[in-house]
């Protein structure tokens, strides 16, 4: 399969001279299987140029998996042209929001309400199916199997594993490893830590030996203490994940919008100079990168 990073930025698109190298579009990952099946994870602003390319060969058939409905993961969807063209087949997958009691279709329809956007959901002319996923429910897309796992973020967030022809890929979506909410002196600390470890192990087992992982790494070690609980990972959390799960390669993504190309490079150099790295290959996710598996 070929994995194409279409958007690697967190929070908000940041075009401009400081983001030329790594790109300014928000999250979108395109996966093409050896058989040509199209899987897209997340509809950040990176999905717009992807849509324009897909339009060159109609009809378009693809499956879009949404990790969660924070703005930077869906804001490009209303600009994904294949949705507007009759004859295209687009299956959209994501989780039902049990807190706000909304399914995916409702959330996306609201995103397209008249006050925000000039076209209504009902005017999308492609054949669109909306599917509320349950954790662990594997979806077959052509030769690939896509499986969601719930991982920690302020809203329910699915990490997706894509497997095809013996190759495997995983994207975390937005993910901060769960933290112990107790202080070490609290009675409940140990029990809570057991649950945290158990939850982390579920992820580690789920992605054991995966070839390529793209993982949320919005913050540095120094920034993290003031961003705890915001729902994003760090280089440390990514490296820990890579070590525990024996990953082949890991791409740091969800770059903070304030981060310049230069800063990304120097942070990367700094992290790579650490002496305790696992054998996993680490990269900075860059818009336009094609990973062949």
């Amino acid at each position, binding site marked *: 399969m070929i994995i194409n990073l279409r958007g690697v930025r967190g929070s908000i698109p940041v075009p401009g001279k400081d983001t030329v190298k790594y790109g300014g579009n928000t999250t979108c990952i395109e996966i093409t299987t050896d058989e040509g099946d199209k899987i897209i994870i997340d509809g950040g602003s990176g999905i717009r140029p992807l849509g324009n390319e897909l339009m060159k060969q109609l009809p378009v058939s693809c499956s879009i998996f949404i990790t969660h409905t924070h703005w930077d993961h869906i804001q490009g969807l209303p600009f994904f042209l294949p949705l507007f063209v009759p004859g295209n087949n687009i299956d959209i997958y994501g*989780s*039902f929001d*049990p*807190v*706000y*009691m*909304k399914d995916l279709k*409702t959330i996306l329809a609201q995103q397209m309400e008249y006050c925000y956007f000039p076209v209504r959901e009902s005017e999308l002319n492609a054949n669109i199916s909306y599917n*509320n*996923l*349950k*954790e*662990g*429910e594997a979806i077959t897309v052509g030769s690939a199997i896509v499986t969601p796992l*719930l991982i*920690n*973020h*302020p*809203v*329910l967030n699915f990490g997706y594993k894509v497997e095809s022809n013996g190759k495997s890929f995983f994207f975390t979506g937005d993910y901060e490893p*769960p933290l112990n*909410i*107790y202080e070490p002196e*609290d009675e*409940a600390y140990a*029990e*809570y830590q057991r*649950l*945290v470890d*158990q*939850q982390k192990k*579920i992820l580690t087992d789920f992605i054991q030996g995966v070839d390529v992982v793209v993982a949320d790494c919005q913050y540095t070690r120094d920034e993290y203490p003031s961003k705890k*609980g915001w729902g994003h990972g760090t280089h440390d959390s990514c490296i820990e994940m890579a070590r525990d799960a024996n990953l082949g390669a890991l791409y740091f993504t969800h770059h903070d919008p304030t981060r310049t190309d230069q800063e990304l490079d120097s942070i990367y150099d700094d992290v790579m100079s650490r002496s305790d790295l696992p054998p996993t290959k680490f990269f900075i996710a860059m818009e336009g990168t094609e990973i062949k598996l």
Partner: protein
Amino acid sequence: MPINRDQLIEMVDKIPTFQESVHRILALTTSPDCAAKDLVQVIEHDPILTIKVLKLVNSAYFGLSQEVTSVNHSVVYVGINTIKNVAISVATTGALPKNNKAGLNMNRFWAHSLAVGVIAKLLAENKGVGKNEQANYFVGGLLHDIGKVLFAHFIPAEYQAVLHKAESENISLHLAEKELLGFDHSEIGAMVAQKWQLPADLIDSIKSHHRLGKQDSQHCPLSLAIYAANQTAHYIELTKEASESEAENLLAQAAKIDHELPEAVKEWLGWPLSEVCKWLSNLDDEIEKALAFIDLSEGEPTS
């Protein structure tokens, strides 16, 4: 037959305290960065709340692949934010008597309360109210008519007469209450809310859902929203009935509700009710979903 203030207070005294936990959760959650462990502690100290939270998190709604066995586990698994919202929803619905001898139809009562809660929440969302606060709008709608339940429970014979009068003379229930009892359900409802130490704007929204009072402009957005949501629910009911029976007078009644909205409500709403109703075309689906949060005793939600 009118009741006096002492009797009213006596009734309020007899209602069980709103579980302390509910009050504490509402208080805790008004601060955006409430400590997760405090919230867990409150839930864990209330066995009923704990069971309900776990039941909901384990329901088909969440579709989790592991069974969640403790509140701490639920927090690790789905996050503190989600558990906070679940706790607010389930906590606010458990404190009321389930049936009464006055003939107040409890199914209709809940259906209406739920509709007002859902509408108020949707309106709040539309007006850009923060997500953390939206739960209060839902709760406000859910509780606005709670005074009716008290009357029906504690003075069933008198309240039966009230219900009969409202029905036979085709007048609003709160007017019939005022005439026969001397107090209406918004007044006693507000007293209960006070006893439960709910936030001040929630109390005000219950108290003023039929009469905003003189200083319209001083009402908080929550009160305006509950007023608007209540009238919207009535408007929708009337237009629905009208479409089934083709009765002109029902439509006229609906138009009258729209026309007679207090200025402050009209201003807050920004649209006439007729438009609001069009906007709410999928209200039934929303209510269907919200039902899962109201009565968890009737088994798991299925969708």
